[in-house]
Each structure stands twice: as structure tokens, then as C-alpha cells.
């Protein structure tokens, strides 16, 4: 009973002895001013060693005016350059090296412009061996190279948008027909057949909201159609400024349709800016006037369902267009046709043909195309990398990572 235990102890002792002999000072230690920061960091790197095991630990010591203190102690098989969130172009040492950041903490403050001495030691049990101390002075930097890819992408995308806008100014850019716009014409046609009015809402946003802007452009188109058919148009508003803008747009459309006399000043009218009072009033209009077609364009909040549910109950054709994604499910289920998100902007650009709008849309398309290509090619690269166990795909993929 006793013998095996004794044996075990001896073997244990022997093996500790054997490992202790292995414990050499950490090699290739380098302590530098932390790059890409405000001067409040030091970086220590050192080579991996054969004793990178959980039972061996590394200790990082910092010497300040108050003497030397331990900053951290961690298992020897942790904290590598590979694990740190760094891109290949900002790695201070090879990926297999150890990596540790020294920041202000209990052991002392790290301030820019002051020299600090750092010692890295390997520790096992009572034993510890230290590498020669290294001194470095932290200093603030003027550019964060980890964010280089971010900046390049911003510049690239900005360039694409500006070039697209310029191109749109010079020549026509193709935009695909938005299916929802056909539905708009159809709805107006039906209202005329039935001799019932058309209700058009521009949403809850103010004039600075892009979706309201798009809604007012589409209103122009609807008004023009309505004018040529001489159908009634009702546009209740929540914002007085939007109302006056829409009044101008409607007037212009009637003029263009050659029916200035048919234009009624009060087809655009203000109700109230309060969400639920407005909703109650519009619901009342729907129930009393029974419009043949309801249009909901622009941004909407919780009132969306209250409006479309009532509209559906009167049997009107309903067409919606909104970028309020939280309300989209309700529009999609209760309306006959819905312009989803960016489709609203596209419809407005399609109708207005304004170079800035069309060009921006084109620029965004190119941006999306770029992202699509990166996603496709990048996934392929990452997969190939795993299959053949190669490191090189990371050199490309790092460029599409968000690093700090």
C-alpha cells in the first residue's frame, strides 16, 4: 500500500526536477511603447518556449518610482500574439510569440514620456527565472494603424459615391423598374373607375427625414395621375412644414398634368402632430369617405397597424412604402403591395431622376456589390485556408476585420 505511493512521490519529485532544469529565462523579450495608442500602454513580447504549459506561469513585473510590482501572472500557454486582436500589419512580433499589454492599474500608472522597466519571469512553484529587464518609454501616437482598413473603406466608398453622382449628372443611369410603382397606377385606375377618393399619407417624419422626402416625391407622381383622371385626393398631415411642401408639389403636378383648375388647395390638410389623435382622425376619414386606394409612404411607428387594419376593413387597395423596419411585417401582411426599405428611396429616385439621388443609389449598389464579392471570395479563401491549413488567406481576410 505504501510502496506505490512512495514510488509516485519519487517519480513526481524527479519529474519536477527534470522540468525545473528546463525552466530557462524567457527568450527574445522585447518591451516597446504601445503602438497606435494615447501613450498609456507598454507592450511586452517574448518567444514561446518548450515549457509553455498550464503549470508554468509567466509573471510580468513593472518598476516604477515606488519599486517593483507584479502586474500580472498567467499560465505559460496563454496570451499569444495570435490571440490578440491585431492585424498582420500591426503585429509587433511573430504570431507564435507571447504578447502582453501593460496599462495603468494597481501596480502603477503608465504615463506618456516616462521610462519604465519591465521584467518577464517564468515561474513554477517556488522557482522563478527572469529575463533581463527591458526599459521603454510610452508615447502617444498620431494614427491608429489598426483602423487603416476602416479609413481605406470610407475613402473608397466615398469615392465611388462621388464618381457615381458625377456620372449621373452627365448621363442616364439604368435603374430597374420598381414593381410597386405599377401597383400605384393600378390602384389609381381602380379608384377612378369606382369614383372614390384616394388617401395618401406621408408618414410621421419631418422634412429632414429621407423617407418623408421620398414620400413627397412619390406623392408628386400620384398627384399627376390623379389630376389627369380627375379623382379626389386626400392628404392628411402631421407636420405643418411637410404639408406646405406637399401642397407645392401637388400644385406643380396638377400644372404638369394640364389640369391647374382641378387643383384644390385643401387636398393637403393638417390634422395634429400627436400620434394617436392623428391616427383616430385618419381612421375616421377612411370609414366615412371610404377611399378606393390608401397609400402609406414614409416612416411609421406603432400607429401603422391601426391605420392599415382600418383601411383593410373598408376594402381599399393599400400600398405601403416604408423604411421603418419594425413596422414592415404589418404593412406586408395588411397591404396589397409594400415597398420594402430601400425600395422606397429607389422608387423616389426612379421617379425624380435627380442625379444626386440616382447617383447615390448607384454608388450604394456598387458598395453592396463590393461587399458581396468580398463575402463570396472571402468565405472561399477562409475555407481553403482551413482545408490546406495555410496561413496566407488571413493576410487578405484581416483586411475585413474590425480591429482596434
Amino acid at each position, binding site marked *: 500500500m505504501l510502496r506505490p505511493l512512495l514510488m509516485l512521490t519519487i517519480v513526481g519529485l524527479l519529474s519536477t526536477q527534470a522540468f525545473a532544469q528546463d525552466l530557462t529565462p524567457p527568450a527574445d523579450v522585447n518591451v516597446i511603447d504601445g503602438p497606435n495608442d494615447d501613450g498609456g500602454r507598454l507592450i511586452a513580447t517574448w518567444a514561446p518556449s518548450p515549457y509553455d504549459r498550464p503549470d508554468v506561469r509567466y509573471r510580468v513585473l513593472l518598476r516604477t518610482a515606488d519599486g517593483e510590482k507584479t502586474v500580472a501572472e498567467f499560465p505559460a500557454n496563454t496570451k499569444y500574439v495570435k490571440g490578440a486582436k491585431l492585424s498582420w500589419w500591426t503585429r509587433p512580433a511573430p504570431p507564435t510569440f507571447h504578447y502582453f499589454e501593460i496599462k495603468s492599474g494597481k501596480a502603477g500608472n503608465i504615463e506618456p514620456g516616462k521610462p519604465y522597466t519591465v521584467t518577464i519571469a517564468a515561474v513554477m512553484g517556488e522557482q522563478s527565472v527572469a529575463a533581463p529587464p527591458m526599459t521603454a518609454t510610452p508615447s502617444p501616437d498620431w494614427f491608429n494603424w489598426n483602423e487603416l482598413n476602416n479609413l481605406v473603406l470610407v475613402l473608397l466608398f466615398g469615392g465611388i459615391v462621388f464618381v457615381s453622382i458625377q456620372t449621373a449628372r452627365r448621363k442616364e443611369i439604368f435603374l430597374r423598374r420598381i414593381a410597386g410603382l405599377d401597383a400605384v397606377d393600378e390602384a389609381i385606375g381602380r379608384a377612378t373607375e369606382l369614383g372614390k377618393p384616394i388617401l395618401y399619407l406621408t408618414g410621421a417624419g419631418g422634412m429632414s427625414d429621407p423617407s418623408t422626402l421620398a414620400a413627397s416625391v412619390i406623392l408628386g407622381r400620384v398627384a399627376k395621375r390623379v389630376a389627369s383622371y380627375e379623382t379626389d385626393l386626400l392628404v392628411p398631415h402631421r407636420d405643418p412644414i411637410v404639408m406646405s411642401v406637399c401642397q407645392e408639389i401637388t400644385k406643380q403636378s396638377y400644372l404638369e398634368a394640364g389640369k391647374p383648375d382641378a387643383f384644390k388647395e385643401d387636398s393637403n390638410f393638417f390634422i395634429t402632430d400627436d400620434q394617436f389623435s392623428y391616427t383616430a382622425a385618419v381612421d375616421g376619414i377612411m370609414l366615412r369617405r371610404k377611399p378606393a386606394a390608401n397609400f402609406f409612404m414614409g416612416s411609421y411607428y406603432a400607429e401603422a397597424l391601426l391605420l392599415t387594419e382600418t383601411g383593410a*376593413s373598408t376594402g381599399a387597395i393599400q400600398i405601403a412604402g416604408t423604411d421603418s*423596419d*419594425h413596422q414592415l411585417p404589418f404593412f406586408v401582411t395588411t397591404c396589397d403591395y409594400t415597398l420594402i426599405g430601400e425600395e422606397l428611396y429607389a422608387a423616389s429616385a426612379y421617379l425624380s431622376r435627380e442625379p444626386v439621388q440616382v447617383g447615390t443609389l448607384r454608388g450604394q449598389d456598387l458598395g453592396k456589390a463590393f461587399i458581396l464579392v468580398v463575402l463570396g471570395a472571402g468565405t472561399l479563401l477562409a475555407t481553403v485556408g482551413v482545408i490546406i491549413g495555410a496561413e496566407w488567406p488571413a493576410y487578405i481576410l484581416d483586411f475585413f476585420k474590425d480591429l*482596434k
Partner: protein
Amino acid sequence: MANLAERLLNIDRRIIFAVIGLCALMPLLYPVGLPIRVSDEVRQVYDYIDALPEGSVFLLSMDFDPASKPELYPQALALLRHAFKKNLRVVTMTLWVSGTGMAEEAVSRMAKEAGKENGRDYAFLGWSPGVSAVILNMGQDLYKAFPSDYYGKPTKDLAVLDGVRTLRDVNYVVSLTAGTAGIESWYVYGKDKYRFELGGGCTGVIAPGLYPLLRSGQINGLIGGLRGAAEYETLIGKKERAVAGMDAQSATHFAIVVLVVLCNVLYFGSRLGRREDHR
């Protein structure tokens, strides 16, 4: 047949209102107590708080207004109860002006229950305008973003904020969100730069939009709606309002599902009928 289906579809909606009202009311009066399964998203928030060592700084931003009280208030209570039980240093605030009163009530109520002292164990910073600006400013200098707390005491003198100079010194931030000013702002203007761990709780309406952030690890957990609150209450073993509401939630959801199915049966019934008429 077609006629009947259409007439059924167009019954007075107030009948449906009554059905829903009853479905919500009855389980509240006569609860059943169905078991609640805890999802990973909620457990991740719980586990993170549970693993924080005593004295860690926990910031709870209650970014909602009374309209979302039924969903987010129980979440706030459960989180605060947990944090106080773990003896964390609790810092609370709100980015929504109309939520100030509720947030204050939640904190002081839970602190009283846990026997914690204002200024020493917890702080309520109140509200400040400008969402992203507030977060950025807190990241740079917390004492400047909130020169004094809600009760008018200078933040520099609060023991609970000792050593908490910026958001970098906060161990865990949880934002309970009812709209855009909340989790997303805390990530974009806060975590992205100041590197604290971030978790979230939100209303059911905005939960689907936050899943990509959860997936990519931008937030480490998500408590969704009343259901999420009920899960958290289950986790801390203190079943309250949220758990009590779950039976009613079950009943109303099933009522809606039945209505949707009925709607489609009647709809297709009426269409089928019409086709027969044509023949």
C-alpha cells in the same frame, strides 16, 4: 358559403377585442404556472453577472419610457436584484428622459430591499440629453458627463464611483432598450471604443433587429421582452410579475394563432366558394 365566410370575416372587431381581453385576463386571475425554459441569450447575461467578482462595477442603463414598462421594468428589477445579491458596485442611469422616474424607483426599491446605501453601494446618475454624446462623454470622463448624480451630489464624491473615471473602468454594462437610443448606441459609441463588456435587454418589438449584434458577439447576451424577464426571474429564483404574466402570454398567443388560422380558412373558403359560383 362564400357569403357566410365573408360575413364572418367582417364581424364587428369589438368582439375580437373582447376575446383578447378575456384571454389575457383569465390566466392572470387563475394562473396555471407553466414551466419556463431558459434560452441561451438570457443565460449568457446571467452567467456573466454571476461570474463577476464582488466589488466589480456594473452599469445598468434603463433606456426606456413608461410605454415599455411592462416589459422592461421587470427586467430591471431582476437584474438589479441579482447585482445587489452579488455585492457589485451598481451604477444606474437612463438615456430616455421620460424614463427617469421609473429608473429611480426601480433602483431605490431594489436597494432598499437588499439593504444597500446610496452613494456607497449604488448610484443613480439620472438622465442627460444627447444619447451618443452622453456615452462618448462618459467614455472620456464620467465626472464631466454627469457632474452630479440625480440627487444633486457631486459624482466625484461618491464612494461607489471611486476609481471609476471612465467607461473603461466599468466591468459590465447592460442597456435595457425600447428603441434606437440604447443597446446600439452603447455599442457604437461606447463598447466599440472603450472596450467594456456589453449585454442587453429589450422590448419584443426591437429584439429581432438586435440578433446580428448578438451573433457577432457585439453584445454578449440578450433578454427579450417579458419572456426574457420571466427567464431571468427563473434564473435568480425569485418569480414575480414576469413569470406571472407568462400564462396570459401563452393564452393570448394561442388566441392570435387561432385567429390567423381562422382568417385564412375563411379567406380560402370564400375564394373556393366564389370559384364554384363562376362555374
